[in-house]
């Protein structure tokens, strides 16, 4: 069942996007460098965008393409704030380890 299934383009793109999303999550867990974490988040957002574009193609729904553009803007805003925070937090630390600071706990 799976073999015939994966050969349709829709399934291929959907599974690719799922794998991209999961890769982003895995990257977020694997990497300690704040830059790498932010890039992993971008991967996850891109996975969502891919589904949106597929939805536009599959359902003849141009609004989804507009949605993809809006998500691009969101990703940009996200990156800007993320980089500002990461730099502010990690500039004075020699180690770039997002898991190291543990002042907030309990």
């Amino acid at each position: 069942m799976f073999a015939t299934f994966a050969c349709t383009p829709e399934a291929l793109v959907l599974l690719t996007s799922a794998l991209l999303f999961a890769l982003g999550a895995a990257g977020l867990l694997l990497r300690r460098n704040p830059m790498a974490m932010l890039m992993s988040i971008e991967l996850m957002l891109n996975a969502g965008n891919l589904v949106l574009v597929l939805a536009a193609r599959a359902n003849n729904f141009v609004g989804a393409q507009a949605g993809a553009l809006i998500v691009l803007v969101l990703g940009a805003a996200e990156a800007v704030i993320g980089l500002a925070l990461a730099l502010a937090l990690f500039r004075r630390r020699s180690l770039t380890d997002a898991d190291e600071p543990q002042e907030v706990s309990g």
Partner: protein
Amino acid sequence: MQEQLPYLIAGCVVALLSAFGVVLSKQPVHGAVALLVHSLALAGLYLLLAAEFVAIGQVIIYSGAIVVLFLFVVLLLPQGGREGAPGSARVLAAALGGAGMFAALAFAIVGTRLPASGPAPAGGIQAIGHALFGSELVPFELTTLPMLLAIVGAVTIWRRQEQGGA
């Protein structure tokens, strides 16, 4: 859409391989370059999926602005932000998390017979323009909010840090 399958497969493979590159590279610079490749591959996929304008947007906004911003910031990091090898617990967590997430999503996707797509949306850029200023006008206008916030937020955070708020 079936006839585009080989190109789609190629695009997907490139996108996935470069995504692996982003996740696995120890140097943020390498990661950023992989992200660049990834976003270009995605732009290719978008083209194949008849979303030309999104593809252009992806190249300009993503590859042109976001990834370059990343590269720029990486230069500011001490030692380029290089990190050591992750511990085994971390690798295990990443493998578990990634596999779990993929399994869950794939379970939902594989569980159904996906209908074949109809004709591609016609009208190209004009149709998107209509969507952006018609049906999706409200969200389009609302992108003002995160953008303004991003600008103000980044400046404020940076000023706080300059003034030694820490």
